[in-house]
């Protein structure tokens, strides 16, 4: 047997060109994870970090700006400590956002993959229902759900998933359909792998990068939808602090000089969305990009 040809070619050819994107990707991953970890930690340690009861009003300290003694981020119109409200708010916002996004993505991917591989009537059913839901106003669907299930964080999660799975499903369906006829899927089948195995090991992982991009968007969508639903009295009760509720409370103060009451929860939501995006980009396997250019 003659000798094997080259060493691992791309590495040998352009080590720098190959390393650079990976380091950059992993750097973003690390930064995103750090931000998310800090937020989760802050939410978990809220009772220790918050100097005040997030619900306690103080008529002698209303509308304080950030940097006031005893209130590092200031207070709102009712004299509630904004730092404490941000910390406690992170608990509900992150929990609802993460679980709603997770449910949305898992359900969407499962339905999309099923539509792509199952008999034609399943495909027709899933795509028709998705089209119908996309055509309906989200609030209408959420209202109906809340009316049936009653306002609670669980209802919020359900409502967000019920109104957000369609883009994920349609993208997953298109991706899986495109991948189905790819040589590596055929090769996997030629080795006798079962349909389930091919689906879970070969189709879904390769369909994930575009789904992951939508998933990151879904986290932001979930946090924002939570605030909308809470504002309508269908979500988290207004006395419980969440970033969405804080935004709702502060909307009237945007033009009165107390911009920070809006900026703080909005900034937290934006930072979360960016961090989730960085993580989803960084999580793509090295080589997935190269693979997808075939």
């Amino acid at each position, binding site marked *: *047997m*003659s*000798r*094997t*040809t*080259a060493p*691992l*070619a*791309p*590495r040998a050819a352009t080590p720098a060109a190959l390393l650079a994107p990976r380091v950059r990707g992993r750097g973003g991953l690390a930064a995103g994870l750090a931000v998310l970890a800090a937020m989760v930690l802050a939410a978990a340690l809220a009772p220790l970090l918050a100097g005040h009861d997030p619900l306690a009003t103080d008529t002698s300290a209303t509308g304080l700006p950030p940097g006031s003694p005893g209130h590092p981020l200031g207070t709102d119109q009712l004299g509630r400590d904004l730092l404490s409200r941000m910390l406690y708010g992170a608990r509900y916002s992150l929990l609802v956002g993460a679980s709603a996004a997770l449910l949305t993505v898992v359900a969407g991917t499962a339905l999309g993959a099923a539509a792509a591989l199952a008999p034609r009537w399943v495909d027709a059913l899933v795509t028709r229902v998705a089209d119908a839901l996309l055509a309906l106003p989200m609030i209408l669907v959420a209202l109906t759900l809340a009316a049936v299930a009653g306002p609670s964080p669980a209802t919020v999660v359900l409502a967000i998933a019920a109104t957000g799975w369609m883009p994920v499903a349609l993208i997953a369906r298109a991706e899986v359909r495109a991948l*189905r*006829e*790819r*040589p*590596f899927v*055929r*090769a*996997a*089948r*030629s*080795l*006798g*792998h*079962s349909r389930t*195995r091919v689906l879970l*090991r*070969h189709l879904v*992982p*390769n369909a994930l990068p575009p789904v992951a991009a939508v998933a990151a968007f879904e986290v932001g969508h979930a946090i924002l939808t939570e605030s909308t639903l809470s504002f309508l009295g269908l979500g988290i009760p207004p006395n419980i602090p969440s970033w969405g509720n804080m935004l709702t409370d502060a909307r009237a103060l945007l033009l009165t000089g107390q911009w920070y009451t809006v900026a703080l929860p909005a900034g937290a939501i934006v930072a979360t969305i960016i961090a989730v995006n960085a993580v989803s980009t960084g999580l793509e*396997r*090295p*080589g*997935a990009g*190269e*693979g*997808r250019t*075939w």
Partner: protein
Amino acid sequence: MTAPVLDVSGLRVDVGGRRVVDGLDLVLRAGEATALVGRSGSGKSLTARALTGLLPEGAARSGAARFTSWDGTAADLLSLPPGRMRALRGPGIGHAFQEAQASLNPTVTVGAHLKEALKAHGAERSRRRARGLAALRGAGLEDPERLWRAYPFELSGGQAQRVALALACVLEPRLLIADEVTSALDPLTQAAVLDVLRARTGAGGSLLLITHDLAVAARWADRVAVLDRGRIAEAGPADEVLRSPRHPFTRELVRAAAPGGRDGTRPAPSGPAAGAPAAVASRAAGGAR
């Protein structure tokens, strides 16, 4: 004459209402390498895919294909229930594809590919790694330990082709179908890969070499079957068919492949493998018996 490993009769494949393979008959025997040659689009790949039930969507097949496994059980590939067909894919019939790099899952390492294949057919967990590494070594790959952790995009074209081959061979198939596996390789690598393929016939296995390269067929196959317009135009010992073709299409094919286009000459066996190492050349001489 040894027993047939595969006996195909009257195979028909329709794609989108068009008949691409029309009544193909083919017999593959144990210990023999058969080259299926024909021009691009003559239905060679579809024939192979019809046998293992991996036709593209919208394609239909009919006919009979009697396959005999290692344990002597025979079955008609075209009427097997899906579960039994799945069990045959891998240990019964191995299939190596032309686009090697694209036939590896980009999100999975080389080692994971091999382990997954072994696991699917019930290989002992503790033996999977050793068997996988042996398959890589058997496909002529050096340093299989390092390749084990590599992702497909990290492989060169030749390495990817050998990995794909190792994957098709790791379950030690009775019949290995190699579909244009060497078309994209340089002559040296091509010769080495073909040697690996040829070695499959040593232990009573059978090899179906799909190629449009008559020189490859001449050097590495015992028998040649010429596919024209969905039928076998001519079949027989490689030497005979390529030296004195009887069917007009074979004559045309042979003439087109010959240097200078002289009529009736054997296609240049020194063509693609010219300059191959002595070991390869001697192997090749044996291969064209």
